[in-house]
């Protein structure tokens, strides 16, 4: 089965969901009669979609799609028209296939230029997020001033986007009682609510969920385990304290972050 990632349009029921897959297709699914309503693009595995980000404005909404061959497309989510295509080949000649895009965020302010947040590339500005290791996940907060990055061997860190400086780094967890040190491997991260840039959640490959508060301490404030496989995706709910988690063996759950209790599990 092709691997899929989904982005939901916030708003009223009935739902309309856009899904992207490893063949580069964009499908629109509506929930009135659950079925694929539209399909954009041709099946082309080199155009595998790696990341996507939507700016759902009332006027002229825009969807940015990052593909495997290094292209970033700006697409209209209502009818699939491609507005612009950027190419993301690095300045030092690094091929896009080796240096895959792992996160994408579309900025709402200013002009709709898709900014690919990646270890070293962006359209307007470039900076290195980490010295070594792979950045696997990134998220920009609601006010678009701050961004959090995490990855394999890369501790979670918070950057100020105006100054391009790192303002906060997490501390690696203390050694195990047996003395074994597991290197940190963050697979996904999100801010807990749109307004507060201080609290964010990062999930690891060893099925743990950490809640960090930069105003409190460098270690996670709350952390708990979720089943046995790596957690692949996390998103926050609009109410600011519910979190949805999905892991590698197909389990979905929602947690209340104020207490760390599981609300719903599938």
């Amino acid at each position: 089965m092709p691997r899929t990632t989904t982005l939901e349009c916030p708003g009223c029921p009935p739902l309309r969901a856009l899904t992207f897959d490893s063949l580069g297709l964009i499908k629109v699914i509506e929930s009135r009669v659950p079925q694929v309503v539209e399909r954009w693009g041709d099946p082309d595995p080199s155009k595998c979609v790696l990341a996507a980000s939507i700016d759902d404005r009332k006027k002229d909404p825009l969807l940015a799609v990052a593909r495997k061959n290094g292209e970033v497309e700006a697409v209209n989510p209502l009818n699939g028209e491609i507005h612009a295509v950027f190419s993301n080949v690095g300045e030092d000649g690094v091929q896009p296939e080796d240096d895959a895009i792992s996160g994408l965020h579309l900025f709402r302010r200013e002009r709709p230029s898709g900014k690919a947040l990646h270890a070293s590339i962006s359209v307007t500005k470039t900076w290195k997020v980490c010295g070594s290791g792979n950045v696997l996940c990134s998220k920009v907060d609601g006010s678009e001033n701050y961004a959090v990055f995490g990855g394999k061997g890369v501790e979670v860190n918070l950057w100020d986007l105006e100054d391009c400086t790192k303002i906060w780094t997490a501390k690696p967890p203390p050694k195990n009682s047996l003395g074994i040190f597991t290197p940190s491997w963050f697979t996904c991260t999100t801010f807990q609510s749109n307004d507060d840039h201080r609290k964010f959640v990062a999930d690891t490959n060893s099925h743990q969920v950490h809640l960090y508060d930069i105003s409190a301490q460098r270690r996670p404030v709350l952390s708990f385990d979720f089943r046995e496989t790596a957690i692949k995706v996390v998103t926050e709910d609009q109410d600011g304290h519910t979190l949805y988690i999905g892991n590698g063996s197909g389990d979905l759950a929602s947690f209340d972050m104020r207490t760390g209790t599981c609300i719903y599990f599938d």
Partner: protein
Amino acid sequence: MGGKRRNNEREAMEEYGDDVELDKKEKKKKMEKEKRREILPSMIKNKEKRSAVHAKLKHEKKVEKRKKLKARDAEEKRALELGEEPLPRKIPRTIENTRENDETVCKPDDEELFACNDADEFSSIIKRERTPKILITTSRFNSTRGPAFISELLEVIPNAHYYKRGTYDLKKIVEYAKKQDFTSLIVVHTKRREPDALLIIGLPDGPTAHFKLSRLVLRKDIKNHGNPTSHEPELVLTNFTTRLGHRTGRIIQSLFPQEPNFRGRRVVTFHNQRDYIFFRHHRYIFETKESKTSDSKGKKGKDSKGEKISQQKVIARLQECGPRFTLKLRSLQHGTFDTKGGEYEWVHKPEMDTSRRRFFL
């Protein structure tokens, strides 16, 4: 029980207003039901009497069924003799017939399926750009039936090599195999001195399929078995309908060379039924049999099927060789073996078994 009776009575009242014939039929049915209700075996508390009544009921049912069958066969014979067309036979209701509708069943005109097939990990082998080279190994403890099974597997799959497991980590073995240009890695897992699971890992970053192995019968235990030759076998994959089944079929296809030697008359079958994959290995031979005269046999050939002159029938005789076993897919993981950090495409969970008519392959 009282509720049912009341409902039945209500229905009876309603049907008084309908057709008289229908009314009579319903009445008859209800009478029968009442009769049966009187002597239901489950109402008898005494075990001996209960089992006697139950046995009697079953015997009656059996006799009735046999009578019906005889009557039907007699009718058919008579109709054939008279030259009329016999009544069409009714189709029995089976679990496969009444399988739950699955939306992931592959359709023949699905262009996304073809694009997926082109893009997946086995396309290079199936398009004959790479020849399959298999590495077989075992779990760390291996004894009794394990080695025998492996030696038979080595004869079934051409271009397979066996290496002892030692104490290597499976992830390290995957790396070594990649360096040596193997296309697949098979791990036979034994439990209690009996092989019970099969892990097929595609290389370099192919999917990992974990099968449960059961009902293993080795060649020496098969009556009248044959010995396999070293010709490339034909591969028969049947009944892999859904997308998941199709992908599993491709995993199995990538183990065997894509150029079968038809003259070698050797066939390997993977038949999927109700999510169980049955493995059989046969040698076959075509023979023509004349139904009137007695000279027959000895003719090898795939022709003479269209001959209508002397009632010759071409039949294929099979001789089983090699092991016989059943596989059931437990999980399919994207990427090479990584149970902790990997992403599973499909995992069998007990909560998926919601109905007896739901299958995934």
